[in-house]
């Protein structure tokens, strides 16, 4: 479902040169697979997620998502692919503060043209246990509840792949396991593949497969 070949990405450095962040010969996530990507900070995990989601464009290589090569698409086309095929869960939840839980979930639907299914949004919030908190604003929800809204929002458009960028980094141990369980369960129920970036070996072990960034990214070879 996701296939990456010969991906390269560099950023300019202050001296005017280029610093290569990613050089990934091959990387795949199968349909419905739950994969953990483990790696040290600054290793390019977030950049890789941004390239897979189309937020950032690769310098070269192939990024095939559900049969579409993102590297050949314009920015607007990548936006559309992201809206319809990608779900995104951030480390800091990033719920929009002025919107209720229900509106935060519906927000993603607004950006995916033609998907304005209020029933779906309510169903997802019920599934993550927030049936009684739909009309609460983020500041009226606990940290765990906020992350559950973020998970529901990521699944609103029935994506093919859910990208979770260290979703347990900012929560305590009790919430950490609850979030992992929730992500695994809803992805299984929705038949959505998941690429979860984490520092935690404990979280990573619970996924179907674990990849270490140092092993797939050549730029990190020899770096301990």
């Amino acid at each position, binding site marked *: 479902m996701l296939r990456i070949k010969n991906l390269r990405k560099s950023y300019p450095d202050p001296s005017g040169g280029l610093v290569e962040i990613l050089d990934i010969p091959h990387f795949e996530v199968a349909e419905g697979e739950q994969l953990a990507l483990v790696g040290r900070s600054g290793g390019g995990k*977030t*950049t890789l997620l*941004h390239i897979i*989601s189309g*937020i*950032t464009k690769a310098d070269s290589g192939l990024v095939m998502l559900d049969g579409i090569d993102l590297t050949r698409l314009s*920015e*607007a086309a990548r*936006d*559309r692919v*992201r*809206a*319809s095929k*990608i779900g*995104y869960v*951030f480390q800091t939840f*990033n719920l*929009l*503060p*002025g*919107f209720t839980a229900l*509106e935060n979930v*519906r*927000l*993603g*639907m*607004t*950006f*995916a043209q033609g998907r*304005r299914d209020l029933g779906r949004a309510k169903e997802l919030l019920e599934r993550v246990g927030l049936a009684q908190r739909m009309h609460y604003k983020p500041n009226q929800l606990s940290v765990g509840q906020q992350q559950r809204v973020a998970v529901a*929002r990521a699944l609103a*458009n029935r994506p093919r792949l859910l990208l979770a960028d260290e979703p347990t980094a900012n929560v305590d141990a009790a919430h950490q396991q609850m979030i992992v369980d929730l992500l695994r369960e809803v992805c299984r129920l929705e038949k959505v593949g998941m690429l979860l970036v984490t520092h935690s070996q404990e979280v990573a072990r619970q996924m179907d497969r674990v990849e270490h960034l140092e092993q797939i990214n050549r730029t990190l070879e020899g770096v301990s």
Partner: protein
Amino acid sequence: MNLFHIAWRNLQHRWLASWLTLLSMALGVALVVLVLAISGLIQETFRRNSNVGYNLVVGPKGSPLQLTLSSVFYLSKPVGTLPYRYYLEYLPKPAREQAYRQLGGSPEEGARNGSYGMFVGNGFALPICLGDYVGPFRIVATTVDYLGQLRHGPDNDRTFEFAQGRNFQEDSQEHGFFEAVVGSIVAKEMNFKLGDVIYPSHGPDGESHGDGFTIVGILEPTGTPTDRVALINIEGFYLLEGHVAPERDEETGLEKATKPAGDLQARQADQQVDPPANSKAGRKRLPLDQREVSAILLKTAGFVGIGLQQQINKSSRAQAVSPIGEIAGLLETFFQPAQWALLALTVLVCLVSAISILVSIYNSMHERTRDIAVMRALGAGRNTVLLVILAEALLISVGGGLLGWTIGHAIAAAASPVVEARTGIRVGFWSMNSVAEPFIIPGLVVIGILAGLLPALMAYRTDVSRSLAS
């Protein structure tokens, strides 16, 4: 959810700044609406008052505007006087014959149509004499036809109605030539009631004439200058002390005596010519040669007004003016520049409000960079976030504008009873300036877009990767 819903939620989240900005726009638009309403009211008042059933005003040579102001609006001093014989030139043969019979002129002279009678046809020629006051209000001496012939109202089809009493009679059994009808404001301000006697004076603070006029009628409010005058019988007016015209040279029209020309009240009667007809109360009418009029209100037959106006203006004796034309000129010369200046000021207020919209949204952009990046990460394109910010600016400008429009019209509607009592013009909530107001909303849309453009471009250029990583 649509983009306006998202924009609305963003505004709600920053409710204080949003409301203050919206209120400043509302204030600006309310001022625009009120300036338009007031200027429209003034123009409509002048328009209606300059068109109460006659199309020409004839008076002595002089300032056309002064003649209009003194004879139509009862403001300013009268230009001068015209001989009563001249007024009779606007009457048909039967009326002239009767006048000459009653007032002692040569019967042969009266036995013909007036020189301008054919222009009047089915219309009318009303003489008015000005110069006297009751309290601070003007007195208009005229004939019984004044209230019978003139009309008022938006379509100029309403007759003058009496709140109490009746029209004065030309020669009543009870009061002879000395009856009066007062306008609604005069009656209210002076506390007049039927049966009261008014004593005309030479000026607001001048000395009163000896004879008094009994009030036999009080008019309903009309919103015309008639509300602010007392109408008296012209026959009684002529009999007041000091209202006899000086003898004039037939050829030159100049006074034979050394008394100064000017207002009627400036002159003193020193003779009477027989045979004037006696009134029922025993007083004699002032003879023809001793009568003058301040102006003649003319309604001409058909479309001959312009031709008659040109003919009169070619003569050396009198001038004819179209009140509507004069007032249009007055408004164009003095009022419209002031109106435009006021409008420019209020539009400036709106522009200041637009800048405050820009500042408000622009300042919020720094703290919203991450929110915008999140929206982009959720699939919103650059154009979408640009449109959301523009929608915020539009909601403030158009929402504020609609609120201001409502406030402006509500104030106008609330003031309606007072305005109607003073001008006769009803200002409803939905009364609109049909020329300018349709441009308010499109104008606000343009202002909103301009105000939102800079912050919207900031949103458009947001670096999603960097903002999410920060």
